[in-house]
């Protein structure tokens, strides 16, 4: 089991009321969580990496409970094997697109500059964003920002990829391109995917859930 969520309950607020959320993800699996309100999905994904103020429950990733009180250093270390693709923002405005893409790799691994450039070229060409590499982050539109986020997450070869509804509002060719690239990198690294979606999700989901009535319910498609 790569990821196991047990009875996760959020501290109730005006925005979020989620109780007793449970699901599990094996290595290489793809789980889609449908959410009519995208913010709910975002908050759930953030809870999986310990960013939310949860009231109860456990999130086990590689034998560590991500929502337990951990030191910042320990928490940061655990997150290095998780790729997170933001629906909105998520890039660092102090850096340009190229620097954003290589940031996690440069920070956590010790990879030769040439190899980094090669990996960046490969992922950016696959996603059709190679012409944006020297751009500043604030020059990107919403879809381009999501694709740069995706490139940054894929290049690290994560064990778990959390994707926050990035296909919503994208053009058909961008969706096809992003889906194909995730598929190719998934075959290469064997990572599991947890994706939130309202209408557009990755086509090879092994489990589909829905967020409704303050809980997570399995959908048998």
């Amino acid at each position, binding site marked *: 089991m790569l990821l196991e969520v047990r009875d996760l309950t959020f501290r109730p607020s005006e925005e979020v009321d989620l109780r007793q959320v449970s699901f599990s993800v094996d290595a290489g699996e793809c789980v889609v969580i449908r959410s009519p309100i995208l913010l709910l999905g975002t908050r759930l994904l953030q809870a999986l990496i310990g960013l939310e103020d949860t009231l109860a429950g456990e999130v086990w990733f590689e034998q560590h409970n991500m929502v337990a009180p951990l030191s910042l250093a320990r928490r940061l270390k655990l997150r290095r094997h998780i790729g*997170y693709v933001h629906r909105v923002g998520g890039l660092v405005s102090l850096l340009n697109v190229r620097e954003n893409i290589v940031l996690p790799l440069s920070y956590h691994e010790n990879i030769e*500059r040439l190899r980094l450039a090669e990996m960046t070229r490969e992922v950016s060409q696959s996603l059709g964003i190679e012409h944006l590499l020297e751009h500043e982050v604030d020059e990107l539109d919403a879809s381009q920002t999501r694709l740069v986020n995706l490139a*940054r997450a894929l290049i690290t070869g994560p064990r778990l990829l959390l994707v926050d509804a990035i296909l919503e509002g994208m053009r058909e060719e961008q969706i096809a391109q992003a889906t194909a690239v995730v598929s190719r990198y998934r075959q290469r690294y064997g990572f599991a995917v947890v994706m939130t979606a309202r209408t557009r999700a990755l086509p090879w989901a092994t489990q589909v859930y829905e967020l409704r009535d303050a809980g997570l319910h399995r959908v048998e498609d």
Partner: protein
Amino acid sequence: MNPLGSLGRGVRRRGRQLGEMAALLGLLMRPRAYLGHPARRRIVFTLFRRQFKNTGVDSLIVTTMVAMLVGFLLVFLLPATAAREQLLPTFSELYILMIVREIGPVMCAMILIARAGTAITARIGFLKVFREFESMHIMGIDPVALFFVPIFWAFPLAMLLLVVYFNLFALFAAFLSLSPLDPDLGARTLIDTVLRQVDLQDLLVVFIKCVVSGFIIGLYAIYFGSRMRGRARDVARAMHSATTRQFIGIFGANVLISVLAYS
């Protein structure tokens, strides 16, 4: 409203702030976290170069203008206090005492606050508003080690650069102003006379003032930017708080260092 209670709360708040700033300073002074890793070192130096350019190099034009005005002013004040044959020695003495030792470091610190300190506080504030710290945490990246450290260390280095630059241009302006008063005055004579008046203690004091002022500006800029709650309206408040404390801090530090060194 109990005035004693308000005073107590104010003292406690200031005490907490000082504690937080001491903790932040401790993190910023810890080199192992960011220099022990070759690739991480590369990012830090890239950001340091960028920050040094934004902080120091881009302040050179305004520094030139201020330095030349101060140089002109110093010479303008001279004829009333010095006989013609005493012009050069009096000028040199005043130049060292006022420009090099006292006004130069304070002026450069003020330029740095106006040009870069406020910008850094706002920049860090907006990183918080747009939740970019959060996205760094999601990637397992510690923003203190990676982003704050280069910003912090760029300030003292920029201060040193600006003070040297300020002194040179003030001297240049003084030379232009002195030339009509003493047509025989050469640039070499002026420089030699000034250099004879400088001693090692003066240079050491100026160096300490630059480093301390740079640290004060950098620390306050980062501290007030990073402790914002993440609302856009907090950015202006953070800039205001940082600037006020930076001014008080650099004036206090400069006076204290002068008093300790020359009393």
